[in-house]
């Protein structure tokens, strides 16, 4: 009892707050954010897959039903969402390869950070032409 009442915190409130916010070996590191993105993109693609199987199942009902639903995909907003899907799948695929290399390649953990920047660059190098192609399709269709 006496120890708790007389205990004088060695650190003031401010610095303990700072210590809680400090980066650790993993927290706040780019490796953590690559994991967060992997999780978000993976869950996103999973929910898309559910909808995608439902819309494609309409081919079993009638050509008209299928064409009607697919025509809603041929709009500028859904076109942007399609590009977002490409972005999510591409990141998940590239980072997945990085995870596999970290797990199975003896030098993987040493180069994990370099591999993260590498997949970032590859992602950009693929996304820019993909965006241009999707934009060209859109311009050709909505002009």
């Amino acid at each position, binding site marked *: 009892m006496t*120890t*708790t009442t007389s*205990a*004088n*915190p*060695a*650190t003031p409130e401010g610095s*303990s707050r700072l*210590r*809680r916010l*400090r980066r*650790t070996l993993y927290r706040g590191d780019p490796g953590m954010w690559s994991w967060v993105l992997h*999780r978000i993109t*993976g*869950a996103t*693609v*999973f929910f898309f*897959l*559910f909808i995608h*199987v*439902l819309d*494609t*199942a309409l*081919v*079993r*009902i*009638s*050509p*008209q*039903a*299928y*064409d009607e639903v*697919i025509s809603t*995909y*041929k709009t500028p907003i859904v*076109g942007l969402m*399609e590009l977002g*899907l*490409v972005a999510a*799948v*591409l990141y998940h*695929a590239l980072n*997945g*390869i990085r*995870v*596999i290399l970290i*797990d*199975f390649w003896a030098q993987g953990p040493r180069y994990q950070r370099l591999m993260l920047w590498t997949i970032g660059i590859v992602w950009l190098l693929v996304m820019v032409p*993909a965006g241009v*192609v*999707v934009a060209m*399709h859109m311009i*050709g*269709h909505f002009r």
Partner: protein
Amino acid sequence: MSSPDLQLGRGQTAPVRQRSHDRPASLDNPRSPRRRAGMPNFEKYAWLFMRMSGVVLVFLALGHLFVMLMWQDGVYRIDFNYVAQRWHSPFWQTWDLLLLWLAQLHGGNGLRTIIDDYSRKDSTRFWLNTLLALSMAFTLVLGTYVLLTFDPNISG
């Protein structure tokens, strides 16, 4: 307790970061037997499956996206006739069937991991996993049925 996060000054109380609703049996009764239910080494095989299916899915999923959104006129050429022509070829039928199964199992196992990470009650975990299993079974059965029984001469 080597994590610097948990080092407390004298008299400081540890912050409550999360509430545990269901204590593992081993906490109250350390000699309780380990749970031996289900397939042995299931988690190891699930871990391996994620990596092996992942490698295949890189090609199947990115190839699918490229053909459907980039190639020729992209999504604007897709209609019932396009699907009929495409599934006339056993190659694309096999591609799509493999993509459906691998993506659904890969994504389902990923979501199972997410549910395990964030659900705090055993009952929450059970019901979310049940919902996940039902939706996976529904998607796999429906997708496989549509792919294998597709009829190009169906009339509306």
